[in-house]
């Protein structure tokens, strides 16, 4: 187990380092000058030079890369070129939106998907099953931003139940903040739930074919009890694995959904920073996201390994 965790940490460090190189190189190659973007079409050569010096862009790329990575190692993400504020502060400020959003949509999708999966199995081949499969098919095909616009039209514009966008901040109270996050979380959760419901259905069906289920049934355990007590717990392992993978997609989806709902989250920060060529912010956020994704995958692996003794014995 220790060797496993150690190997994982090594992968993490390597991935993070590769991410710094890739993101830095890509941003160097992409056309666009942050100073020119800031000062616009009437900027004079001398003001552009002054701003570039202020931004620290007058040094060669290798030096800037080393300085940035050196800062990262000391836990310093640098200072945003546009906002003139520490990247760590910006990220912290945005995480309080994106993290609850991701968790809320994860909770909503799981809460919907597992009952739906169970329902499909219980009603296998009948109406309920077809309905769940239909939802799964459509839910996967619908893009989040489209669902987002639809939700806004129905629940904000027509019914007026939720705000059409924006975020009042947690300081305005938990309820207004949650109200602002509900529709975006739903927009993210629906495609998510569709995938998860399918996975749950298949995983339960797979377990139902196994010997211990037959034994349980032979012992006279009711169909429902078999499903809930014997099949479901065993089916949760593949579901958890997919859930972990989905978390990365959730972060990507958040970029789009945060823009539709104008939520001040990490995704919107990244989107705006790319447009502004705020290299320092883009670099910092991308590396953090890369680390996050690797970390989640590692955690899922470790959790699965802990729950299931077989891979450990093999290694």
């Amino acid at each position, binding site marked *: 187990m220790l060797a496993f965790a150690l190997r994982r940490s090594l992968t993490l460090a390597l991935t993070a380092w590769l991410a710094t190189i890739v993101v830095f190189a890509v941003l160097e190659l992409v056309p666009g000058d942050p100073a020119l973007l800031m000062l616009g*079409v009437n*900027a004079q050569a001398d003001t552009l030079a002054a701003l570039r010096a202020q931004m620290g862009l007058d040094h060669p790329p290798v030096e800037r890369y080393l300085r940035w990575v050196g800062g990262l190692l000391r836990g310093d993400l640098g200072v945003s070129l546009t906002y*003139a504020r520490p990247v760590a502060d910006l990220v912290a400020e945005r995480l309080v939106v994106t993290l609850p959003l991701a968790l809320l949509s994860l909770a909503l999708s799981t809460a919907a998907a597992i009952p739906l999966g169970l329902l499909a199995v*219980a009603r296998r081949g009948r109406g309920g099953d077809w309905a769940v499969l239909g939802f799964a098919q459509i839910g996967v095909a619908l893009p989040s931003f489209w669902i987002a616009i639809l939700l806004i039209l129905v629940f*904000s514009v027509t019914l007026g139940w939720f705000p059409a966008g924006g975020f009042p901040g947690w300081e305005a109270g938990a309820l207004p903040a949650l109200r602002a996050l509900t529709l975006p979380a739903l927009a993210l959760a629906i495609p998510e739930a569709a995938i998860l419901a399918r996975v749950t259905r298949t995983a339960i069906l797979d377990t139902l074919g196994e010997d211990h289920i037959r034994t349980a049934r032979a012992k006279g355990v009711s169909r*429902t009890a078999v499903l809930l007590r014997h099949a479901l717990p065993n089916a949760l392992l593949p579901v958890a694995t997919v859930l972990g993978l989905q978390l990365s997609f959730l972060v990507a989806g958040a970029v789009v959904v945060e823009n539709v709902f104008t939520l001040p989250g990490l995704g919107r920060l990244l989107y705006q920073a790319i447009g502004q060529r705020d290299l320092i912010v883009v670099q910092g956020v991308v590396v953090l996201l890369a680390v996050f994704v690797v970390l989640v995958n590692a955690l899922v692996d470790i959790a699965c390994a802990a729950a299931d003794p077989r891979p450990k014995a093999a290694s």
Partner: protein
Amino acid sequence: MMMNRARSFAVATGVFALALVGGAAAWAQARTDLVIGMSLEPPHLDPTAGAAAAIKEVTYANLFESLVRVDSSGALVPGLAEGWTVADDGKTYRFTLRPNAKFHDGAPGDAAAVKFSLDRARGAESVNGQKGYFASIASVETPDPRSVVVTLSRPDGLFLFHMAAGDAAIVSPTSAATNKQKPIGTGPFTFDRWAAGDRVVLTRNPEYDGPKPALERVSFRFISDAAAQIASLKAGDVDAFVQFNAFEALPEFRNDPKFAVTVGTTEGETLLSTNNARKPFDDVRVRRAMAHAIDRKTLIDGVLYGNGVPIGSHFPPHRAGYVDLTGLYPYDPAKAKALLAEAGYPNGFDATLRLPPPPYARRGGELVAALLAEVGIRLTIEPMEWASWLDKVFKGKDYDLTMIAHTEPLDIDVYARDSYYFNYRSAAFVRLEEELNRTQDPAARNALYGQQQRLLADDAVNGFLFMLPAVTVQNAKISGLWVNRPIQANDVTGVTWK
């Protein structure tokens, strides 16, 4: 059993939703607040250190004041200076400041602050997006705390106009360094907070030494997505949306008595910018052929849903000095083909049209390509994001054609710049510009502007298309929002609720 679980889940979800909805109707009455929607978020809030229009659209006249101020009609009125005199030689300006002006942190809004601001904007370390506005200043003196004497090295007909710009905002030496995040000016509103990515909130300045605005609290919300803009208005999340560009939704808002729609003027000449140095566009016959091939009415209907005014040169029709040249190259595809044949392109040619992100450019570019295709000019459309457009097209001059609105007020002088991205060189135009700079008399200046417009139209330097409209969709109970945009600003000091 199974169904019971599903049902209780559904009930739980319903209860959760109701609980959230319950908190909705809390704030309804007190209408001394205003929420304005804008498409773009400012990168920071220091108008003296960035060109983004959004910076000025939050801060101008609200937070910061310049010596002179542009009012809703475009006239120059007192700002931080309550009056000024100009010496006969046109080189000495004497400004008298308001007696009790104060910055929001209590620092005096006096002559020393003005001298500091002007010297900072023209100094070696300046990162002012319009440093050129200050180029004619030779010295700034402060004979007493309320008087500022600016001496110019040469007469500058636009000097006062430039001193009214947001870029010439007067800042305090005590807070200039931190204005990006915590702007401190002398204006009637103070900065309250900036929820980055969402909104900037201003509150009324109780210490303001001039007339106090009716609004106590103003929020600027940033919503870039067109569908979300429409939804935010309909849901009542924003009270007014300025520079609204989902034109297709306007009939709906016009038909709804809850809303008022205003269409005003901007300074945005929208051009089919042409690389005059590149073949075949270096041939004036080709440029004139293109002018004959472009039907402005089709463009205005297609891009702006009819809400635009055609132009025939680089000058806004609402300004004194305008000459109507829209009839110079009437829409005539046959004539365009004949001109192309004369220039040696009987079968037309291929070229690239690089388009920046604004909707007018993306939509307009498609229409321009379709119109030019009818006379044999085959365009390949290349959409670009701003950073790439600025880098490649504007700075690198690597383009054939592009479409862009030039939004700076009175910016016809760009055609006199050698290095500008049009690659247009005309000694005659430069001579007119030099004469303009020497001329103070308004009538004489307007005559010179007229000659400049004719020259540009005659040379068909660019495709002169239309003026970008200033469209505002607002709650019908609001009055006092600017209809026209003579300068980049959302001056809310005169806004009231009915």
